[in-house]
């Protein structure tokens, strides 16, 4: 097990390097660079001033030196200052990161909570009306643009019925309220964004679970378990499901970037104070430091999630530990 973990960890390092390279390259794409962006707004900036600022920011050094400097800053998690309000980028991200992690975590929970039973029962009742209906649902899920569904839910639940709030993370209070009122309020705000984000890849996951389950229930050991006289739940709910869930762990790693990235649109639509919306605003204001930092952190989160998924997979399926 340890050998496998160490091997896996070693594979992570070049991936992280690659991510830092891509993010750095992203900044180089900007025509004219950040100086021209800032200077365009002020016609009085002289070329000498621009050259001086460029030298101060180290932008006149050769590219590889700039990259090494960026890498050293990355190691210290120092992403520089945001261009829009000159606050340290790390601080801005840390303010928003917990909200995004909460939303993503809940969304993945929703996804698994619905996809696994749907796949489970679709496989067991393969060919039935339920299976066909779920199949249609899956296809629609693949084809629907998530943000359109978000708008639809906003109209129905927010405007017409008025049941759920459609923006932010909590309401504004004019009087002090007890903690459980606050908690319930936050929960109400989380419902719509979580459902919409949870629908990302829900269809795919349930399909995968169905196929995995179908493969498992035709195996000999399931037939043996039934022949032994074990209860339906023990055979299918415990033995079959456990084996069917293992391949899903790897899929979990593939879903992560979709969830983290999908958060960008969902958070923007719902005005949710998370890292995704921060990223969108950073892109709109061409705030390079913030953009690069969010790219690296999102990618880092995905890599960490994948690593975790691989560890879980090695734990769940002993066959791959000894490869």
């Amino acid at each position, binding site marked *: 097990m340890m050998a496998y973990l160490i091997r896996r960890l070693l*594979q992570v390092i*070049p*991936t992280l390097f*690659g*991510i830092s*390279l*891509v*993010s750095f390259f*992203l900044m180089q*794409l*900007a*025509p004219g660079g950040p100086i021209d962006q800032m200077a365009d707004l002020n016609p009085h900036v002289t070329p000498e001033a621009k050259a001086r600022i460029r030298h101060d920011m180290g932008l006149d050094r050769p590219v590889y030196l700039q990259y090494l400097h960026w890498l050293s800053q990355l190691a210290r998690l120092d992403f520089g200052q945001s261009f829009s309000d000159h606050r340290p980028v790390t601080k801005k991200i840390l303010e928003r990161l917990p909200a995004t992690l909460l939303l993503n975590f809940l969304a993945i929970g929703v996804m698994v909570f619905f996809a696994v039973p749907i796949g489970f029962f679709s496989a067991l009742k393969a060919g039935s009306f339920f299976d066909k209906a779920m199949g249609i649902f899956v*296809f*629609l899920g*693949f*084809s*629907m*643009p998530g*943000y*359109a569904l978000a*708008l*639809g839910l*906003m*109209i129905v639940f927010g*405007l017409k019925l008025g049941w759920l709030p459609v923006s932010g993370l909590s309401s504004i209070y004019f009087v002090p309220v007890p903690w459980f009122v606050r908690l319930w309020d936050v929960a109400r705000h989380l419902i719509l964004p979580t459902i919409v984000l949870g629908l990302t890849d829900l269809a795919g996951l349930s399909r995968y679970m169905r*196929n995995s389950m179908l493969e498992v229930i035709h195996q000999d050991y399931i037939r043996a378990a039934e022949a032994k006289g074990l209860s339906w739940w023990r055979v299918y709910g415990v033995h079959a499901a456990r084996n069917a869930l293992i391949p899903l762990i790897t899929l979990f790693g*593939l879903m992560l*970037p979709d969830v*983290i*990235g*999908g958060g*960008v*649109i969902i958070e*923007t*639509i719902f005005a949710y104070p998370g890292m*995704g919306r921060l*990223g*969108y605003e950073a*892109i*709109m204001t*061409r705030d390079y430091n913030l*953009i690069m930092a*969010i*790219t690296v952190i*999102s*990618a880092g989160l*995905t*890599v960490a999630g*994948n690593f975790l998924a691989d560890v879980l997979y090695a734990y769940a399926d002993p066959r791959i530990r000894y490869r």
Partner: protein
Amino acid sequence: MHVCTYTLMLRIYLDRFKKNHLAVIGFTIVACLAVLAVLSPWICPRDPVLQDLTARLQGPTASHWMGTDDLGRDVFSRLLLGTRISLSVGFVAVGISLIVGTVLGLWAGFFGGKWDTFLMRLVDVMLSIPTLFLILAVLAFLGPNIYNVMAIIGLTSWPGLARLVRGECLSIREREYILAAKMAGISTPRLLFVHVLPNVVAPILVSATLGVGGAILTESALSFLGLGVQPPTPSWGNILSIGRDYLHIAWWLSLFPALAILVTVLAFNLLGEGLRDVLDPRT
């Protein structure tokens, strides 16, 4: 392979395809959309960019079948022109990802060794970075126009295809007919393109068809956020983004583009799944 074998195979595939009703529906819808896309500038009932501020935000009527938007433009005509934009972005983006992904995947899968390791690391990196965010950032830097959108969607969707092609290559290169061809002294390029590639085409075709749907979804998301196709050029995404501002008073601005996207992507997905059932019947 002999020409007769190819026509026989095609006939078998066509028979299998026709039996799958959903796939036939998908194909029909895609064909209709393609025709609409090509003919759209000539069959629009009204001018899609003509503003008529006296007729803003009107619901569906006899003269404006799907109503008007906030500048009085006919939504139906804009939707028709949007078909052209969406389909062309979908096809070009997938074309780019096909070329890049297939070449890299074949190379890595067939020659293996350090090429394979390098490609797999590159694919890992590209798949770790949240795609939409990356695309938004690049478009913000390079300027949002339809050609950049096509290129960037293509250049961010090749990793999945490359991984697929590489996997297929790894299993094919051990087969006897490849070893036999190598022993017969066939040169490597010919080996790759005449003997390996035709056997990899099936999953590539399925992935490409499904990829068109994905590319259309991505393009509409980009236009919705304002970094895709720019107005006044109509795209389903940017009609939706106007619809978002008038959600409470003009439902037609949101419903019709959303339906258009849904039906189009659904059609490509049905077609892709149908192709998968035809070309790879073991699942």
